[in-house]
């Protein structure tokens, strides 16, 4: 019988290995799976490649994972924050690599990875510095760039409600990258504020079908990044 629930964030991330690629959901604090990230810090896997839209705030969540030295490379559209110097300091010291990707191209590359599309062409970034090293081809007279799919060993995401099959709904703009990362992660781990039985979610309103989800962890009252930053929290 299908029951994807696991007991704790620590159990859910225990299989992450050194050198793995990890997608982490969220746009700013909305959708950031802080409790899973903190479990990954406790777990200690190193030399990770992280794919995430931002690079974290303050010294908790994703910023803390980076500060812990576990991240060798980040694939990211906006690695700047008014509330954190963790990434900038390491980047300027040459201790972390950055692959900068326009936000829409990042989303589309992750979707492509989940959808079995190895590569696609996009007009975004043609004629800019971010064209460097990319194959250019014109369609209807318009220059476009070849972009390759992104996949990950693990995806860590946050949902509002999950059922035990892994069907998910999200909360408002916390949805952002998570449905795409759920598709593109070989193993997808969800922290959900509520966990229900199959049949409790409306089949018409499920955003991520359970087929894309491997482990569901119940985290009933997740922390909010902005509140942690406001009170100067650090992890660990």
């Amino acid at each position, binding site marked *: 019988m299908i029951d994807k629930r696991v007991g704790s964030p620590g159990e859910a991330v225990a299989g992450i290995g050194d050198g793995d690629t990890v997608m982490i959901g969220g746009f700013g604090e909305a959708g950031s799976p802080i409790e899973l990230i903190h479990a990954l810090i406790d777990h200690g896997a190193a030399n990770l490649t992280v794919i995430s839209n931002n690079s974290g705030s303050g010294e908790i969540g994703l910023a803390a994972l980076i500060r812990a030295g576990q991240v060798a490379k980040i694939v990211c559209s906006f690695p700047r924050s008014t509330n954190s110097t963790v990434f900038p300091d390491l980047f300027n010291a040459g201790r972390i690599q950055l692959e900068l990707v326009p936000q829409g191209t990042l989303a589309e590359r992750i979707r492509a990875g989940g959808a079995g599309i190895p590569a696609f062409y996009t007009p975004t970034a043609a004629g800019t510095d971010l064209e460097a090293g990319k194959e250019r081809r014109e369609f209807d007279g318009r220059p476009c760039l070849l972009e390759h799919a992104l996949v990950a060993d693990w995806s860590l995401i946050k949902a509002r409600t999950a059922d*035990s099959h892994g069907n998910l709904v999200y909360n408002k703009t916390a949805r952002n990258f998570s449905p795409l990362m759920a598709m593109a992660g070989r193993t997808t781990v969800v922290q959900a504020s509520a966990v229900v039985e199959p049949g409790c979610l409306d089949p018409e309103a499920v955003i991520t079908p359970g087929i894309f989800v491997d482990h569901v962890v119940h985290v009933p009252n997740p922390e909010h990044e902005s509140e942690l930053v406001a009170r100067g929290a650090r992890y660990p």
Partner: protein
Amino acid sequence: MSPTAMGLTTRQMARRAAQDISDGSYVNLGIGLPELIALFIPDDREIVLHIENGLLGMGPSPEPGKGDPELINAGKKQVTTRPGASYFHQADSFAMIRGGHLDLSVLGALEVAANGDLANWSTGGEHAIPAVGGAMDLVSGVKAVYVISRHCTRDGTPKLVERCSYPLTGAGVVDRVYTDLAVIDITAKGFEVVELSPGVSFDHVAARTAAPLRDARPA
């Protein structure tokens, strides 16, 4: 060769194939004979059935008069849903297929070749209307592809062949074949019989197979 009198009925074939579907797996069943497999999933297993027109968690046929003409399977027959079902559009449905998220697809066949090639979408006839549907997507994306089919056509022509004569659905895609006569794996060595139907001999199967057949039954 004439059609075999011995061997399994189509329902028995479906029941046999159903035994090999693991608990918890996500499965797409093709139109026709493969659909029957859904009737024989063992009670102690939870299988999530995917239909490519946009549903995970397909349930049995509705009671007469209780169906919705807009809740249909890929064969355009009315179905129901199970708890935990979800609806999605065609791009998401084929993202599941192409992206390797389904564990198993069971399809019908016109021909299966010893190298795993499958032909099941077109006889290539001059006035045949070509129609492919999702077959090529399924064979290129799903983790395992099984075929369920009678061993020979109605006129006794073998369907398991050295090389397909009909246009391919996919090259080197079939992992296993369930027929009325046997269960046959396709490996780097070609067709390998892993199980014979009750009362059927290896020679009987070999005589109705148009390609070399190895006996790989457990000792």
